[in-house]
Structures are given as structure tokens and as C-alpha cells.
């Protein structure tokens, strides 16, 4: 089979209308060259950083509260998520219970009319992020790098299914994931754990050491959520050899890793708050951590980021994503070995992925997720979607951007995506999109450009014989050869 087509589809988002002209005669070299380049698309410059979103939100909320205090009638009953993360602020204006209780009222910024000015700002942020991400992947000259960004963002899922996190999921990907895809795994873990979006999503920003200054007041205490998922999902893996005590120890170590607010630290940024850090000695994975404030967390993250179980867990997840739902053991072993030998150098690990013979020989074992299916169809036709179209399409196909159902992220196997209902939805979407653009393309030429000899002759023939151009294009997008990679 055509190696350039495989390179484009397996490691990227598929070929464009010009086929594989840009790839040239060395598909492996083309993939590896993408790992050395900076990966910040130009359209990201206009997007606001997380801290700005958080601060803007706080200010607008503050103004509305002030207006209410001055006697102006509020537009609706006040049930808003608080985004004032300082523990002092939390104490003086209601605890985290009030915040979480109010969460659903913040609503999905995509749906319904915004109730408050801050919601309008947040909705704009979500649309802008979605549009920028979509443009980045559909138009990227470095699609392998973009796939890696999406892979790692899913590995370290921050899901907007918790409304308070929704506007920050995009900036999380830009700030904590994207800069590190070719760097060290340890740096990515640290950036993730220190990002306000993860702090909010897995509750660590309000986790209070029971014996800390704030904890001793007795109102607040420990939250294990981040400690557990960091071990189970992000690093060692569920069978990685840690125990319940380690989950709790890590949670204690990470107390104080919070977010700055109006009264503490740098507003909207990661801030270590010593007043909520659990003091004293901790034992984590058999090692003793003497009291060292924020240093304990830095040391613990370094340990788990370089752990052999982590190497194996990460290697397996990469192999499942890029090679096969049940990846060959040899490939997982080799990737884990490279991870260990290079101290978690993700540039080296990604390059090793390209070198795995199974990544080429087991072609068409993987099924595209809805996001990848839509992006590859848009890429194939050389078009783009408006942010509103992108959001609507992904919602309907069951994979809203940054809306994974749980911290485990989106599933990565065929069984999860290809049920009777899901296949129909994909066909319906293929037809709807082909109806819009199908009259402007030659479906047979496009089939040859993006699939080459990776589609069986009889299937190519079926496309050629379709009753109309749009029907033919719908068949191309719905064909197993296009949906598999």
C-alpha cells in the first residue's frame, strides 16, 4: 500500500485534495521532521490566556454582585459558579459547597441564552477556542504534531462536562499540553497539575490539609480526586503498583497547589498556598518526603513521571491510539524502553512510534473517532467549518470538543465508537456534509487523491457508479477505507 497515504492517515488527519504531494518520497522523514518544529499555530495569538479568562470572569461577576448590592434588580436569581479560588475568599463568602451546588446554573455556554455578562464572555471564549483548534487541525502542515496534541490532551483530560471548567479546556490544551508534546513527559505532567483548569476539574484547588492553618479551623479538608487520577490515569496506571495509602499521601503532598485569587497569589494563575498545605512528613510509594512545602509535590511528580509503570502505561496508550486496539506487545515494549532510556523524552518516543513496523503493517486496524472523521473529511475537501458548525457537528456525533465523559477521556477502541446507532449517525453526517460540498468536487479524483490504493477496487467502483456527486462523496466519507486508518 501507498506509504505516504498511510503516513497521512495513521499519524495525521489524512491527505488533502492534492493527495500526498506535500509528503514526498520519505514518509517517515516527513513525520519525524514535524517533531522538531514549533507547534503554535498563528491563529492562537488572539486567544486569551486562562488567567485572563478567570480574572475577567471574576470582575464581571463582582460588578454584577455590586450592582445587586446597590439595589439594581438582578436579571435572574443568582446561582452562579464562583471562580474565586482563594481559600480566604471561600471562607468569607461561602464554602466550596456553595460553588459546586451552583455549578449547573452556569450552564453549557453553547446552549440557551446567556443569563449574565460573564456567560457571554465565556461562550465567546469557547467558540473562539473551538474555531481555532478546528482551523489548526484542518489546515495544519504538521498534522502528526496536531494528532499528538489531541492525544495528550485526551490522556490528561480536562472536560467541560463540569461547566466551571468549560471555558478553560481549550486554553489548558494550548498552555499545558501543546508546548510539551516534543519535550519531557515530566514537564508536561507538571504543567498539567499546575494548570488552573486541572486544579478546578479534579478539585485540588480546594483540597485542604487537615492539619494546615486553614484545615485546623475545621471547615475544610482533603480531597483525593487529583491524587487518584494522577496515579491511575496519567502516570502509573491502575495496575502500576500503588496502594490506597499512596493515593492519600499524594493528595496530602499536593495540598496547597491552588489558584491565585483577589486575595492570594497571582490571580488566575497557579499559586502555592502554604496556609492549606498539610504539614509534616509523608510516605509516598515507599519513599519518605520530609516537610518541604511545594517541593514535595515537585519531587513526587518527578518520581512518578520517570517510573517504569508510567513508561509502560504511556507506551501502551500511545500504541493503542496509533497502532491497534490490542497493540502488539513487542511494540509496547519497545516504546516503553525508549521512554525509560531517554528519561521520558517525548520527541524520542514519538519518533520511535514512527519506527514501529506494526504502525505501518497493521494499517486500517484503527477506527477514526468522530472528531478525526470530521476533520479528515474537511481536510480532504480543502474546506473549513465555522466555529458554530464545528461545535454542532461534534455534538451530534457524540464527541463534543473537550467534553469527554470522564477524567479517563474518550475511549480509544472500535467497539466504543461503532455501534448500530453510531454508524447511522456517521452516514447521516457524511450525507449532510456531502450535500453541501459534493457538487463542487470530482468524487473519483478525490478518492484517488486521499485513499490511493488503500481502498478496494470494488469499493472505488461503487463510488464511481453512485447516482450523484453528493452521493458519491457521502460514500467516500462513509467507506470503511476512509473511516479506518
Amino acid at each position, binding site marked *: 500500500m501507498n506509504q505516504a497515504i498511510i503516513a497521512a492517515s495513521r499519524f495525521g488527519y489524512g491527505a488533502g485534495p492534492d493527495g500526498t504531494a506535500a509528503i514526498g518520497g520519505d514518509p517517515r522523514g516527513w513525520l519525524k521532521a514535524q517533531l522538531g518544529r514549533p507547534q503554535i499555530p498563528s491563529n492562537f495569538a488572539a486567544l486569551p490566556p486562562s488567567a485572563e479568562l478567570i480574572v475577567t470572569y471574576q470582575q464581571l461577576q463582582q460588578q454584577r454582585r455590586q450592582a445587586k448590592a446597590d439595589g439594581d434588580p438582578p436579571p435572574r436569581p443568582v446561582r452562579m459558579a464562583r471562580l474565586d479560588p482563594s481559600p480566604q475568599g471561600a471562607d468569607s463568602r461561602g464554602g*466550596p459547597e456553595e460553588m459546586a451546588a451552583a455549578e449547573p446554573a452556569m450552564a453549557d455556554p453553547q446552549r440557551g441564552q446567556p443569563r449574565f455578562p460573564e456567560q457571554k464572555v465565556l461562550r465567546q471564549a469557547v467558540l473562539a477556542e473551538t474555531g481555532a483548534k478546528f482551523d489548526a487541525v484542518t489546515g495544519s502542515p504538521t498534522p502528526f504534531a496536531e494528532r499528538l496534541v489531541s492525544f495528550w490532551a485526551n490522556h490528561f483530560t480536562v472536560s467541560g462536562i463540569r461547566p466551571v471548567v468549560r471555558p478553560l479546556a481549550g486554553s489548558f490544551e494550548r498552555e499545558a499540553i501543546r508546548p510539551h508534546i516534543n519535550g519531557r513527559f515530566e514537564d508536561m505532567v507538571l504543567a498539567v497539575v499546575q494548570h488552573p483548569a486541572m486544579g478546578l476539574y479534579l478539585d485540588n484547588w480546594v483540597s485542604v490539609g487537615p492539619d494546615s492553618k486553614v484545615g485546623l479551623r475545621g471547615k475544610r479538608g482533603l480531597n483525593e480526586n487529583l491524587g487518584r487520577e494522577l496515579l491511575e490515569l496519567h502516570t502509573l496506571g491502575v495496575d502500576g503498583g500503588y496502594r490506597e495509602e499512596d493515593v492519600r499521601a499524594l493528595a496530602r503532598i499536593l495540598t496547597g497547589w491552588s489558584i491565585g485569587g483577589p486575595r492570594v497569589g497571582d490571580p488566575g494563575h497557579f499559586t502555592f498556598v502554604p496556609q492549606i498545605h498539610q504539614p509534616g512528613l509523608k510516605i509516598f510509594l515507599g519513599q519518605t518526603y520530609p516537610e518541604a512545602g511545594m517541593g514535595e509535590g515537585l519531587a513526587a511528580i518527578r518520581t512518578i513521571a520517570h517510573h517504569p509503570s508510567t513508561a509502560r502505561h504511556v507506551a501502551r496508550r500511545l500504541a493503542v491510539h496509533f497502532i491497534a486496539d490490542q497493540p502488539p506487545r513487542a511494540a509496547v515494549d519497545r516504546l516503553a524502553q525508549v521512554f525509560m532510556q531517554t528519561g521520558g523524552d517525548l520527541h524520542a518516543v514519538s519518533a520511535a512510534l514512527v519506527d514501529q513496523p506494526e504502525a505501518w503493517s497493521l494499517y486500517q486496524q484503527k477506527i477514526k473517532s468522530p472528531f478525526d472523521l470530521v476533520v479528515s473529511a474537511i481536510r480532504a475537501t480543502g474546506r473549513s467549518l465555522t466555529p458554530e458548525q464545528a461545535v454542532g457537528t461534534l455534538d451530534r456525533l457524540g464527541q463534543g470538543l473537550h467534553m469527554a465523559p470522564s477524567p479517563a477521556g474518550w475511549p480509544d477502541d472500535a467497539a466504543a465508537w461503532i455501534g448500530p446507532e453510531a454508524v*447511522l449517525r456517521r452516514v447521516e453526517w457524511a450525507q449532510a456534509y456531502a450535500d453541501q460540498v459534493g457538487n463542487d468536487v470530482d468524487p473519483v479524483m478525490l478518492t484517488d487523491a486521499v485513499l490511493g490504493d488503500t481502498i478496494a477496487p470494488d469499493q472505488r467502483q*461503487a463510488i464511481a457508479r453512485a447516482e450523484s456527486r453528493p452521493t458519491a462523496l457521502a460514500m467516500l466519507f462513509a467507506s470503511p477505507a476512509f473511516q479506518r486508518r
Partner: protein
Amino acid sequence: MNPHDTLPSRRRILGTLGGTLGLGAGLAILGLPRIAYAAAPTDNRLVVILLRGALDGLAAVPPYGDPRYAERRNGLALPMPGQPDGILPLDHTFGLNAALAAIQPMWGAGELLIVPATAGGYHTRSHFDAQDLLEMGLVERHGAPTGWLNRALVDIQGNDRNRRLGLAVGPSIPLMLRGGVAVASWEPPNLKAADPTLLASLTQMYAGDKLFGPALADGVKAQSLDDEVLGANSMGSDGKPRFAKAGGYGPGAFRPMAEAAGGLLAAAGGPRVAVIDMGGWDTHVGQGTVKGRLADNLRGLGDGLAQLKTSLGPAWSRTVVLVMTEFGRTVAPNGTNGTDHGTASVALLLGGAVKGGRIAGDWPGLGQLEENRDLRMATDLRAVAKGVLRDHMGVAPAHLDSAVFPDSAGVRPMGGLVRV
């Protein structure tokens, strides 16, 4: 002792015969042409509702009469019966969270059975591991990932292999329903239905593909049944989609799913076993007592269950709904007025076929806690599921012990859960 435990019911005899001779043959021998003529081997319905994320059972069904309740639950203790938003008392020990008011009438009608202190028999506090094990019907991972309900369908369907008796409601098929028996799935439609000629061409194109071929065939078949039962494109009389809100997020998403499941299960030629997922139960922070995320979710659950009864119509009398979750949550609030991952939660059985209005199984009390933090397990969820499968769906006990819940002979089916 319950007489129903010892007397084999007619259904169990049929089930046993069905298992050995093939169900059609068994029914013909017994001269029951009406049932034999019916498309499905059973007319009973089973709905499993999986609450993903670990339901705080002590908040849903508070043991307000337990002497340690208020002290152990601390800030999460609910207002006592009679107070504003107070617990709705069921007996002297247990009550319902006020947010579950929609199902309270079922208790009075004998259609709601509570099984407190339930857990899956496995030891993990990982959601993903626990959900997998709960759905696979195992206490530790081994073998291919297939679901216990799919394996039960092998026995329930008997020789009727062409009929899709299982139904997954939602965007994907949960592990509990995955396996060798083909099942139907339904999800709220929000795209224009595909052109039949395109579907015909694709059916041909997919013929050689083991994944896409069967999935499309099943999808097309299921869609025609859905259209017949729910109306083409599921449009209401106002011209708007009937299930517009379904498929979204949050507590309100459950009710339309329950409505569709009820409609499909009620149809003469429809499925008999359905699974509905509902998420949002992982309440680590500020879960709230009478207001908040948990209360909203419980209200969504209760409303959906009431809707399920309405949509099932007369078929409700032949229905058992099993509501369960992967594990419970800590008894005491954590430091952020939420609860962390625990051990035992609660299971609910609802339906006209349930022998309800009572509490089943033991109550370990809040005195001694598991690892000094969790409610201890009194009843294994497999015992509940086995009791329902045996007495309501006619699954042979030997099949239950070996195939449906492998190596589970030591977990006896809970008897007397249903009106037989």
C-alpha cells in the same frame, strides 16, 4: 421463609426447558400457543440503570433511623422527616431523599424495593475498573470483555437468535450489553435520516467489513422499529423533535432516554431488556444536601423513573427496573463537603413485577465502618441480579453460576424480589 423461594414457578420450568430443548419446543410441549406465537421468548421486561460515578447511597436512601446517622454523616445529614425538604420516611430506619419524591408513590404501591449496602464484590476504588468489573460480572479481570447481561441474553433468547431482545439506550453500547448476542441501540436522532438508496449502496459496500457491515444492518433494522413505535423521525405533534433535549448533558438528559426506552420496551415486537446510563454521580466537592449537584441529579433520576413507568403503560406490571452503581462513597464528608470513593451504596428495584414496599437484605449499620470510612457491604449486587434474572427472566440457575457470573456459585441468588 418465603414460599416463592422453594416452589418452582411456571416460568422457571419454562426457563429450564427452554435451556435444554430450545424455548420454542418447550412452550409447544406445554401447549401454550399464545406465548409461543409471541415474538419474544418472554414477555417480561428488565431495565438496568447504571449510575456511573458512584452514587452516594446514604444520600439517596438515608438510614435516618440508624443511631449513628447524624453523627457519622455530619454536615451531609439530611433534614429529618417533617422538616422543610426533609427525608421522606419509608420505614423507621430508611427514607428517601426529598429529591426522589417522584418515586415515593411506588413505595406505597408496593413497586419499590430497597436493597441497602450493596456493592459489587470487587475491591477497587477506581471508577473505571469498578464499572468494568460490575458490567462484566466479575470480581477480578479475566477473559474477553463481555457483559453479564449479554451472556444472560444467550439464555433469555433461547433459539430466537434473530430477535434483538437487548437494547442500549444512549450513544454507545455499554460493556454490560456487549458480547456474542446482537443487541439494538437507540439514541435521540438529531440529524436528518439518511437516504435509503445511500444506505442500500453502503450495505453492499460494507458487506465484507466485519465491523461496519453488521453495525449498519442492525442500525437500519432498529431504526425502522423505532420509527414504527416512536413515529418517523420522532417528531411531536408540534413539529419539533420529541426528544430534543436528550443526548445533552446534565440531570435533565435522563428523562427523554427513559421515555424512549419505555416506548420501545412496551411495543409488542420490541426489546425486552434495556440498559440506560446516567452519569454525574462523582460528587467530590459540595455535593449538597437538599440543594446542589447531587439533589439535581437525584431529581433527574426520579423524574426519569416515573416517566419510564408512564411510557411502559400496561407493560409496567411485567417490568423490573434495577438501579445500581459501581461503589458507594465515604460516610463522612471529605474536606470539601463532598464524598470520596467508598465501598457499599444502595440498589433500587422498581416495577409492577417487584415485590416492593419493603427493604431487602441486611443493614450493617453505621457503627462499624469498612476501613473506618465506608459503609460495609451487606449484599453482593450479583445476588440481586441473579435473583432477578432467575425469577423474572427465567434464566437457568446453572447458567447464572457459571456463564453469566462466572465462578459465582457461592453468591446465592436473592429470592423473593419479584412477584412470581
